[in-house]
Every structure is written in structure tokens, then in C-alpha cells.
């Protein structure tokens, strides 16, 4: 009986894989590129230019890097520069190309109980800590979460992950913003998600952008290929083709032209 089941499963597996075995590339990426619709917008043009079908799974950057480490995908589009560099140093990744950026903002209730509006980033985090104002953290090892953790360090503060006012939601960005809204707290979000959130509230969301423009709030996205020595089965050539396409003037212009609710969201910066 068991052999029958195993045989059945394997035939099933083969039947499903064979049909997908054309020139296709599997990518792990972060939720922000999927949720904003950027990938849906870029993919048809990439397919037209290269004949490669791009498939992607959107998760947090932490898991995306893990999927690269276990060779379950061929290419990565992620946003956590220091984790990416470590990924390459560990021998998992080969090429890394910075392709675009957007930025993070600190949002909070209009009443601004900690008085952070317009302050610098270090002052902001210190004020939040001193006032013990509620601060929502993604807490899911995503690129946003990694950046936020680094910001506390850069501000010369200890990561407040044991404090009662520091709430780790363990959820996606929009869900975390919703928690912040319900609890009247602060959080850090990428601008794209905030624009969406604000437009859902007809441009008058209860949480407002209070701190923005600090250079530490830049959010750099990069394409990473996997090292063929570590992952011999990953499609390195196709991954490189994707990396070069994303850095090409044509794709860079497409990225610049991508609007969300009338606002530019990603700024191309491939060198």
C-alpha cells in the first residue's frame, strides 16, 4: 500500500513539474515588492525581453535568504544590506546588485504623545523610550524588522525587546500598522505600505507620518544570485540575466515610472 502511495505521489510530482520545466526562474522576494504590485508590473516586460518566466514567492527577507541558503530558489530580491553581505560572505550568494530604494517613515497618532514630529531619528527613538510610548515592531525577521533593530543600535540605545511598551506583532506591515492604529502607538513602515494604508482611509488615516527623510531610513533593494558552488542546481545563468535586466536602463526607467495611488514609490539606483 505504502509503495503504491509513494509511487503515486512521485508520478504526480513529475506530472506537475514537467509542464513547468520551460525557461523559468524561481525568485524569493519580500512582501513589499508583491503587495505594492511592482512585480506584477515588471514581470510581463521581463518575460517579453528575455523569454524567461519569472515565478516568485513573497515572504520576509529573513525567510527569503533562508530559501536561498537551502537552494530552493534561483534568485533573490531583498532589502537588508548587512544580512545580504553576510549571505555572500558565508558562500551562499555570488553577485549582489543594488537596483532601487525607497524609504521608511516613522508614523504615529496625530496627537504625538512622545513629541517626535520633525525630530531626527536618534532623538525620536530616545523620546519614545523616555516617554515609554507604545512602539509596534514587526518582529518577524523581515527586512523592515532588521532595519528597525539596527536603528535602535545606531541611536545608541539597547534594543527594547523586553520592554512592555515595545510590542512585537510578528505580522506583516499593514497588519502591524493596524495594531498601531488600534493601540494608538508608533511604528516604522516603508512608505509604500503607508501610502496604501492612507489611501484606504481616504487620505485621512489616524496615523500620520511624523519623521521622514533621515538618511538612515533609506531602504535599499538588491538582487542576489546564488553561488553555483553552493547551489549547483540553481539556475545561475538565468538569475544573472534577471540581475542584469533589473539594472538595465529600460527596467530602471520602468521602476521610476511605477506609481502607487499617484505617487512614485521606488527610486532606481543601479550603478
Amino acid at each position, binding site marked *: *500500500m505504502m509503495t503504491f502511495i509513494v509511487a*503515486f505521489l512521485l508520478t504526480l510530482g513529475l506530472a506537475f513539474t514537467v509542464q513547468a520545466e520551460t525557461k523559468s526562474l524561481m525568485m524569493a522576494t519580500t512582501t513589499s515588492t508583491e503587495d505594492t504590485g511592482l512585480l506584477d508590473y515588471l514581470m510581463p516586460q521581463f518575460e517579453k525581453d528575455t523569454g524567461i518566466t519569472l515565478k516568485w514567492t513573497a515572504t520576509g527577507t529573513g525567510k527569503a535568504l533562508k530559501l536561498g541558503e537551502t537552494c530552493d530558489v534561483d534568485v533573490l530580491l531583498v532589502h537588508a544590506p548587512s544580512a545580504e553581505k553576510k549571505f555572500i560572505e558565508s558562500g551562499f550568494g555570488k553577485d549582489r546588485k543594488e537596483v532601487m530604494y525607497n524609504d521608511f517613515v516613522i508614523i504615529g497618532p496625530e496627537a504625538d504623545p512622545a513629541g517626535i514630529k520633525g525630530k531626527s531619528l536618534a532623538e525620536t527613538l530616545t523620546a519614545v523610550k523616555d516617554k515609554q510610548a507604545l512602539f509596534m515592531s514587526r518582529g518577524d525577521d523581515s527586512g523592515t524588522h532588521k532595519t528597525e533593530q539596527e536603528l535602535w543600535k545606531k541611536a545608541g540605545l539597547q534594543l527594547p525587546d523586553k520592554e512592555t511598551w515595545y510590542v512585537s506583532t510578528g505580522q506583516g506591515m499593514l497588519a502591524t500598522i493596524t495594531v498601531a492604529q488600534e493601540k494608538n502607538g508608533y511604528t516604522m513602515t516603508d512608505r509604500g505600505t503607508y501610502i496604501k494604508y492612507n489611501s484606504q482611509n481616504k487620505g485621512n488615516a489616524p496615523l500620520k507620518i511624523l519623521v521622514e527623510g533621515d538618511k538612515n531610513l533609506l531602504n535599499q533593494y538588491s538582487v542576489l544570485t546564488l553561488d553555483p558552488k553552493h547551489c549547483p542546481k540553481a539556475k545561475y545563468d538565468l538569475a544573472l540575466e534577471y540581475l542584469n535586466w533589473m539594472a538595465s536602463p529600460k527596467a530602471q526607467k520602468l521602476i521610476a515610472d511605477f506609481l502607487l495611488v499617484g505617487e512614485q514609490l521606488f527610486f532606481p539606483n543601479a550603478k
Partner: protein
Amino acid sequence: MDFIAEGFVKAVGLLINGDSSIWSAVLATLKVSACSLLISTGAGLPCGFMVGYFDFKGKKQLRTVLDTLLALPTVFIGLMVYAFISRQGILGDFGLLFNLSGIVIGLTILAFPVVTAITASTIEGIDPELKLTLVSLGAGKRHILFTCLWEVRYGILTAIVNAYGRVSTEVGIAMMIGGNIKYHTRTITTAIALETNKGMFADGIALGLVLITIAFLVNLSLSFLRKQ
């Protein structure tokens, strides 16, 4: 609250116009639930029969284990299956991860205890006289199996309906193993999770209503079987 009403309106539109991404999610859901249901029923019915029909040492303990398996968390199944079918896992060479067939494996593990446990319970409820009659009439093993299963066909139908309910509404396995890839492994439930993450609550509700409609149709056809 507005988005609930909006969701209803959208659901009707989705079902009538149905863009390709919706249909591909519906198709993926039907494929994985049908395959996993077929396999788990094929394996679960005989297993359930044996557990329910025969008396053997450790039967009670086995039932307890089976009943515990009914509570297997789906994300846990997803994680275990992932460990095996990841390219670094034992079954890594088959390319099952991020494929519908990978989801089928996970869902089969989910549905198998449901079919087995419910079948065993209904078999246990069979009139002992039937068993005696069958044996005294000199029926073969195969004959006894099929007669007993036929006798409890409604109970088996209940088992299948329950298993269907679990696999078609499952999201943890589909997300972890399938990866929610558009046009490939996106099922209705992972699509709902995505729309919710995007804040498109009305679209999420619309998709949920599509799923309920499918479940309704499936159960309608099963209840038709019951009348026959």
C-alpha cells in the same frame, strides 16, 4: 465594516466575469483538494476499516494516537514536509517544493487521520450480528471489507466531507509548501491571505465567498449521493 458588503458585490462580479488569476486559484484549490482527498481516502478507508474491525493489542493506544493526529497543526505539517522536499532534503531532487504536488503531500497527511479515524469509529458502530452473519456465510476477507464499508457508507461520506472541509480551507501548508506563486500555486486561501496583507479586505471577502460557494456545490453533490 463597509468592506463586507463591498465584498459581496465583488464576489458576484468575480464569479460572473472571473479574471484569469481567480480561475487559476480556484483550479489550484480544486486540484490539490481533489488529489489529496483521493489519496487519503484510498489509504484511509482500508486503514480505518482495519483499526475499527479487528481487535488487537494496543488498539486503544492506536486510537488515541489517531485522534491526536486529528489535531496536527497545519503549519507544523507544512514545516515537516518542507524539511523533506527542500532541495537539501531527502526528496529534494524531485522539485516538489513550490509545486502543487508538494501541497498535495501536505494535505494528504492532514486528511489521512480524518478519514481513518472517522471510518474506524463508524466501523466500530456496526451491528456485531452482521459480522457473525458474514463469517458464518463463509464470506471472504475482501467480501467482508466491502460489505462492512457499504454498510457504513454514510459514515464514510461524513469522513470525506470532513476531510474535504479541512483540505480545501487549509492555508498554512499551501502557503509554506506552495509559496503562493501567482498562476502556479496560489490557492483561494493563500490569495485571501495575500489580499488581507495588502489591505484589500473586500477582495479577501469576495474570494472567501467563492470558496464557500465551491464548498456548497461539493456538499450539494455529496448529499445527492446520499439520497440515491
